[in-house]
Each structure stands twice: as C-alpha cells, then as structure tokens.
C-alpha cells in the first residue's frame, strides 16, 4: 500500500471506518447493497454520509461509499441462487411487509434495478436482475405451496 496516494489512503481509511461502524451490522450483501444505494442521490449519483464526511471530507466519503457499494454488488452477483433466495426472503421479513405484498411490489416495480452502482458492468447487472427475477418466482412458488395460514 506504499504506492497509494494520500487521497486514496484517506478513502481506504474512510472505507475501513464505514465497514467497522456501520456495515458490520449489515451482514447480508443484499441489505448492504440496498443501504448503500439509498445513500446515493439519484439526481447526481453522489453518495452522502454526514458522519463519514465530518470525519474525512465529502469527496472521500463519497468514494468510500461507492467502493463499498461496488463490493456489495460484486458479492451479490457472485452468490449462488439459493443464497440469493434466502437473502431476499430474509430481507422481506426485515421489512415487516406481507409476502404477497412484497413479491407483487418487487415483481412490478423491480426496485433492484436502481440499486446497482453506476459503473457496474452491464452483463453483471443483467445477470443480477435475471437472478432477482428467478428468486422472486421461486419465493412466489414457495408461498403458493404453503398452507394459506402460514403464507400470510
């Protein structure tokens, strides 16, 4: 790491700080992806994190968040389908919405499309979208096969 520029070193420090204080509590890559995407301004593509910006600078905080976002995306792209299905189910449970409502909303709105990093490779992004589509179909079929009382 001796060849890193001072700015890059700041980004690395900010990244470590972010991982230690915030992301360590968000274990699933899917949750991290959604959390980090929510830190991004949709109009400018710039990430904001007041705490991190106060400890470093806004620019360094933005780069650190973008790095972590890319990493979460990569983890999710490379995760097997069964893991994605269980992550999606766990995420659904954490939102306290009914399975039917969740699956309908995710199937129609496809919110995962806006959760990918800007610089994501198009094929990887398409692959992840495709996996989400399949995972949603699997969850839906599992819900249909459950007794009516348990599905709610």
């Amino acid at each position: 790491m001796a060849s890193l520029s001072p700015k890059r070193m700041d980004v690395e420090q900010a990244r470590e700080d972010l991982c230690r204080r915030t992301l360590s509590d968000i274990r699933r890559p899917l949750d991290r992806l959604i959390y980090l995407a929510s830190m991004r301004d949709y109009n400018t593509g710039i990430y904001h994190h007041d705490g991190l910006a106060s400890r470093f600078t806004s620019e360094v905080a933005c780069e650190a968040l973008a790095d972590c976002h890319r990493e979460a995306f990569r983890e999710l792209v490379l995760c097997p389908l069964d893991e994605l299905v269980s992550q999606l189910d766990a995420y659904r449970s954490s939102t306290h919405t009914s399975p039917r409502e969740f699956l309908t909303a995710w199937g129609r709105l496809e919110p995962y499309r806006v959760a990918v990093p800007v610089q994501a490779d198009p094929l990887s992004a398409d692959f992840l979208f495709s996996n989400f589509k399949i995972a949603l179909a699997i969850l839906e079929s599992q819900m249909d096969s459950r007794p009516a009382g348990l599905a709610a």
Partner: protein
Amino acid sequence: MLVAAFGAIGRVIFWFPGPSKISIQGGSIVIQLIFFLLIGAALLSSLVFLGRRGGARAQGDPRALVEARKALDALQAGLLPEELVHRIFAKEDLSYVVSASAPKRVHDLFIAERKKIALSWIDQVRSQVSNLRRFHTDAARSYAQIGLRTEFQLACHFASLLVACRALSAAIYLGGPYAAPQMVDATAAAAARICAISEQSLAFLNPVQLKPFASGSLPS
C-alpha cells in the same frame, strides 16, 4: 490527370478497329458510346471507393487505441473473470431449482433467463474480440513492438475464437445454457489468451508507476 487518362483511353478505343469493320456507322458508334459509359462508371466507382477510404481512420489514430483499450478492459474486468463465467454457467443453480420442487413455469423461466444471459455473454465477448481484431488489423503495427510471427499467431487466434463464439452461440441457442460447458471454458481461455497478447500491444497506454521522490532527491 483524369482528363489525360480519359484522353488516352479514348485514343486507344478510337484506334481499336472495333468488332465490325464492315460498318463504321450506327452500331459501332453506339458500341463505343456504351464502352465509354462503362469506363466512366468504372472510374467514378474507383473515385468513390478512394474517397471513402480517405475518410477512414489513419493508421495510428489515437481513437483506435482508446477503443482497443476499452475493449480489453471490458473483456478482462467485465466478461472474462473466471468466477463470473463460472457463476453464469453454474449447474448448482439448476440443481437448486430442481431440488426446490419449483413448478414447471419457474424451471422454464430459469432456463430461459440463463440462456438469455449466456447468449448475451457470448455476444459481448465476440463483439469486444472483434474490436480488438480491428485494432490489430488497422493500427497495431504503427505502435506495437510485436513481431510478424506473433501477429500471425494472433490472427489465427482471432479467427478461431470468432468461429468458436459462433459455434457456442449456436449450441446454446439450440441446446440451452448447459449444452456445451467445455466449449464455454475453451472460449473463455482463448479470449483470455488474446487479451494477454493484446495487453503487450497496449501496455504503453497503462499509467506509468512513478516511484515517489526519495527525500533529498529534489534539487534544493
């Protein structure tokens, strides 16, 4: 120059006795006229062809280099990482869908989606490899320290890889995403080899890793 060329051609044609010595009127004049028109059309097409060639990029155009670098980056970072290729064609996912006792529609959806992604992967690999080939055909010799033998080997690699991409595409289109796993590995490996060779040609575009100044190395 063109006028002189026309004049010379005209003189040759007028000197040429023509198909029929019997009649020098009527038919022969029409034949000569058609002949002139054909030559005129041929010269015009040559001019158009030369004009279009003139509009093409000159050898060593920096845009060609940048596009080749982009193609190489897209292949190395986006399309050829082993873990991504493995993930796209992983049979474990199919086993999971089967074992999850999902209905037929889910199974069909899975196969259709994976097929779509697999075909898209091949298509993008082929497209980026074609970009690299274009670069090597047009400009590599202006820049690269690459020998004739390597160039020939590279040309063979390009040709075989593009044919392999077409064959793999057809196999997956007809037989589904898991139809030709060995061909997938072979194609990815061949594309990686081409990237490694192209990397040599484009190495000078990489940012130079400058060593930081040692203390006291700057003049006071």
